[in-house]
């Protein structure tokens, strides 16, 4: 059974700092998604990673995928308050399995 683990689960950081969220998974897959969820809202797609070594960037967020290590990272550069949200990774086999999420709080 596929297991998806994110860490940290909670992260409070200052504006302007850099940090990385990690997503480990237990079964070979070469597709992984990152989503953002604001409180009381639905999930917004951020990145689709389709192959080993894939790297995608959007603004202050950059996601990467290492299928050999079964690891994806979401890196935040020079954080701003607007990035406060919960971030989920989701691994794709024949179904999409989500991690527990990382609740990110950026202090102004």
């Amino acid at each position, binding site marked *: 059974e596929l297991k*998806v683990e994110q860490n940290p689960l909670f992260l409070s950081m200052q504006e302007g700092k850099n940090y990385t969220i990690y997503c480990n998974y237990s079964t070979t897959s070469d*597709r992984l*998604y990152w*989503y953002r969820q604001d409180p009381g*809202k*639905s*999930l*917004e*797609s951020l990145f*689709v990673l*389709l192959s080993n070594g894939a790297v995608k960037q959007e603004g202050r967020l950059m996601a990467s995928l290492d299928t050999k290590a079964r690891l994806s990272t979401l890196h935040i550069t020079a954080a701003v308050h607007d990035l406060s949200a919960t971030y*989920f990774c*989701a691994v794709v086999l*024949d*179904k*999409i*399995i*989500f*991690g*527990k*999420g990382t609740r990110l709080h950026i202090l102004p």
Partner: protein
Amino acid sequence: EAGVAQSPRYKIIEKRQSVAFWCNPISGHATLYWYQQILGQGPKLLIQFQNNGVVDDSQLPKDRFSAERLKGVDSTLKIQPAKLEDSAVYLCASSPLGRGTEAFFGQGTRLTVV
């Protein structure tokens, strides 16, 4: 492009009552998912359809939950009878066929069982 539509947005019921949720996926999307998201947790897949066939329902509590997708378009998810632990947000998502296409989520239905 219209997104995934769900209704109702909110529902409060007493335990042992029944409830139904409706989902209209993005036009042309063959795959439809129902997820349950308990407060503070990640979405948990309940059932996945491809067109009107069930691909995976291994985590659906079949003694009380049922879902159908008639004609491969709209879908309904029903709970009967509801339990307190069913309180959650029920998210519907859809995706087109093909590799590398992410799932697009609706706004969800927040269910409170009292």
